[in-house]
């Protein structure tokens, strides 16, 4: 286990490695289905991950802009911007749902 895999609990100092899944329009826009991403500390959250992805520019910056309707789930539960991330979490990034 390297440092990125370690979550230091209350201290929250460490970066964490999470597995990120992309669905539907976002998967196509980004050209990727799944990747492991290290989210920096000291308090890795959903919004920190979004900021990191936006910095990639291009489609990432456009699709993940704050005014876009993006949904995030952490470990298959809907999450919000301040949801904390822990090492090994499964994070899903997707557009509003359109089933039924």
């Amino acid at each position, binding site marked *: 286990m390297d440092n990125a895999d370690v979550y230091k609990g209350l201290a929250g100092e460490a970066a964490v490695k999470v597995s990120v899944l992309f669905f539907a329009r976002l998967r196509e826009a980004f050209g990727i289905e799944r990747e492991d991403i290290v989210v920096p500390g000291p308090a890795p959250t959903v919004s920190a991950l979004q900021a990191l992805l936006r910095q990639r520019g291009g489609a990432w910056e456009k699709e993940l802009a704050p005014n876009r309707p993006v949904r995030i789930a952490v470990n*298959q539960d809907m999450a919000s911007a301040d949801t904390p991330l822990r090492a090994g979490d499964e994070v899903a990034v997707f557009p509003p749902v*359109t089933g*039924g």
Partner: protein
Amino acid sequence: MPVRVQTQDFDIAAETAAMRADNPGIGAIASFIGLVRDLNEGDSVSAMTLEHYPGMTERALERIVQDAKQRWDIIEVLVVHRVGTLRPLDQIVLVIVTGAHRGEAFAACEFVMDYLKTQAPFWKKEQTSAGDRWVDARDSDDAAAQRWQ
């Protein structure tokens, strides 16, 4: 199992028969079937592809079923949702609710569909005369779900 996500078609008669078998307490069965239409937003639709998030989708549907059972005095709920490529006339989704009385069964069936449309992770991509496009979420679906809050 009250929740299924599958590529194959479903048969409402067979599903209903299985739900009511040997249960004389059932006095009402309400059901809904969603179908693929051949027209959306003014463009003809030749096919659509439904995608889901394996694991989370089933959990979300199970949560909706549990929620319905807590809100209404009903007996059982079945949700079957198809994924993959479907064409106009094809069935997409089936909801069946059994209960003692029709009022609770009707309401629960509508609730399950309204919540499914806004909370279960499924996404539709249409092949239309204007090209392929991802279907956008509708404000009217959000409004329908909010009625129950």
